[in-house]
């Protein structure tokens, strides 16, 4: 495998040798990991002789796949965010080295330490974790999210992430309407939800570093313990409750609707741990608002995925079926917002 005809495995080995000043690098394993339509991940085991990090290391190399999403960060930006999160004590894979390509390979990549465990959402949600294990896992997730949300634009400049100009909710509404305008059909249920979101946009908000795709399936778990939060390509400055709303939206409970927190367990276990660490607790109204926003976002993503199939850019049964999930997502939305109280309309 390679990019632009250069063997990625050989290139990465030489890169690690230079980065660690090792005398020699022995590659014991280099294989692509499952998943990753937008990014590709490779498991890489290396044995380094001499240099600053001698010994055996289990790593992951992350680079771009052929498909890319406009909204996602570059690998260099993602590495910067991951480094900030790591330094703040967020449970993430330790970022090690970034390769910024100057034409020799054809793409950037970075290496991070491989964390143990499994990220499979369905296995986790429907698995045999006990009630107390589920609550313990949610507590870890709540704490690690609160650690991340402790990073603010006032405390930390992240070159890759521009400072936000608009309130997060207003920015999202504009972004989703703009995307809908580019699609082939109008979507009145999504328009109804967006109007509701506009009328009920929070008057006060915080802006913190958010993960942007914090959901079951994007973190690793081993023996019921959180080992690392993955997939940082949608990180940005936003409202902290956006991450919690995304995590708790019905679409990310993987069929286990009664387990409100990510299909794992009770909401209180997540929010109590978050509150202990962050010093404040998101209220029910805020969480409801951002669950609605999350559901609109998922609908927009589903439409974009279907469009890739419909346009002929990437004919795919999986993308086509994602498009046919739209009525499910619309029902989630309508059940979230109806009936609309008079005071919700008079907020404008």
């Amino acid at each position, binding site marked *: 495998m390679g990019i632009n005809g250069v063997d990625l495995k050989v290139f990465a080995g030489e890169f690690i040798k230079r980065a660690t000043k090792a005398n020699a690098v022995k590659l014991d394993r280099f294989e692509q990991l499952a998943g990753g339509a937008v990014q590709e991940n490779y498991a890489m085991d290396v044995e380094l002789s001499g240099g600053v990090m001698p010994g055996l290391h289990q790593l992951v190399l992350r680079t771009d796949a052929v498909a890319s999403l406009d909204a996602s960060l570059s690998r260099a930006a993602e590495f910067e965010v991951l480094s900030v999160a790591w330094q703040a004590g967020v449970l993430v894979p330790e970022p090690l080295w970034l390769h910024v390509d100057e034409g020799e390979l054809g793409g950037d990549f970075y290496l991070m330490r491989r964390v143990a465990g499994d990220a499979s959402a369905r296995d986790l949600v429907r698995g045999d974790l006990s009630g107390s294990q589920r609550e313990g896992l949610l507590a870890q997730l709540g704490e690690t999210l609160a650690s991340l949300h402790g990073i603010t634009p006032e405390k930390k400049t992240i070159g890759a992430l521009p400072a936000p100009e608009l309130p997060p909710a207003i920015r999202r509404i504009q972004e989703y*309407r703009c995307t809908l305008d580019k699609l082939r*059909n*109008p*979507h*009145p*249920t999504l*328009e*109804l939800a*967006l*109007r*509701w979101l506009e*009328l009920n946009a929070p008057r006060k908000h915080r802006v913190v570093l958010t993960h942007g795709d914090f959901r079951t399936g994007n973190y690793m778990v081993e023996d019921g313990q959180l080992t690392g939060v993955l997939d940082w390509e949608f990180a940005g400055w936003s409202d902290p409750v956006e991450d919690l709303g995304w995590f708790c939206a019905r679409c990310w409970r993987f*069929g286990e*609707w009664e387990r409100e927190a990510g299909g794992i367990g009770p909401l209180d276990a997540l929010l109590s741990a978050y509150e202990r660490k962050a010093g404040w607790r998101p209220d029910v109204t805020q969480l409801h608002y951002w669950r609605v926003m999350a559901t609109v976002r998922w609908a927009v993503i589903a439409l974009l995925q279907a469009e890739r199939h419909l346009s002929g850019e990437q004919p795919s*049964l*999986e993308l*086509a*079926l994602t498009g*046919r*999930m*739209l*009525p*499910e997502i*619309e*029902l989630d939305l*309508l*059940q979230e*917002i*109806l*009936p*609309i109280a008079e005071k919700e*309309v008079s907020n*404008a």
Partner: protein
Amino acid sequence: MPDAPTGADLLKTARSSLLKELMPHLDESLHRSALMIANAMAIAARELEEKRNSDELLCQRWNEHFSVGDIDEAYGGVPMALVDRLRGGELDHELNKLGALLQEHVVLRLRVSNPKYLKQAGLD
């Protein structure tokens, strides 16, 4: 009168053959793809059997309740004027009425795409 068996019957029979005859012989790595194919066939069969056109119903209701004028066939029967009026706030005090109408439309579409979802949502 279409030839028998109908397209819906063919799809259902083919799906059954896929799941009962082929699936047990497929490598486990192909099971997800096979299940996706079976799901697509089930949706297509239900769509062929569905007598009610959910878009036509929606347009009829819109005209009854919101007098949106001519329906633009180019947009799948969804009147663009309605979207503009929603965004402009003209329908703010009719959102519940519109929401109920849209839910009726969504339920019809779910009967085709995923009837089990309706049951889980307490609507069937």
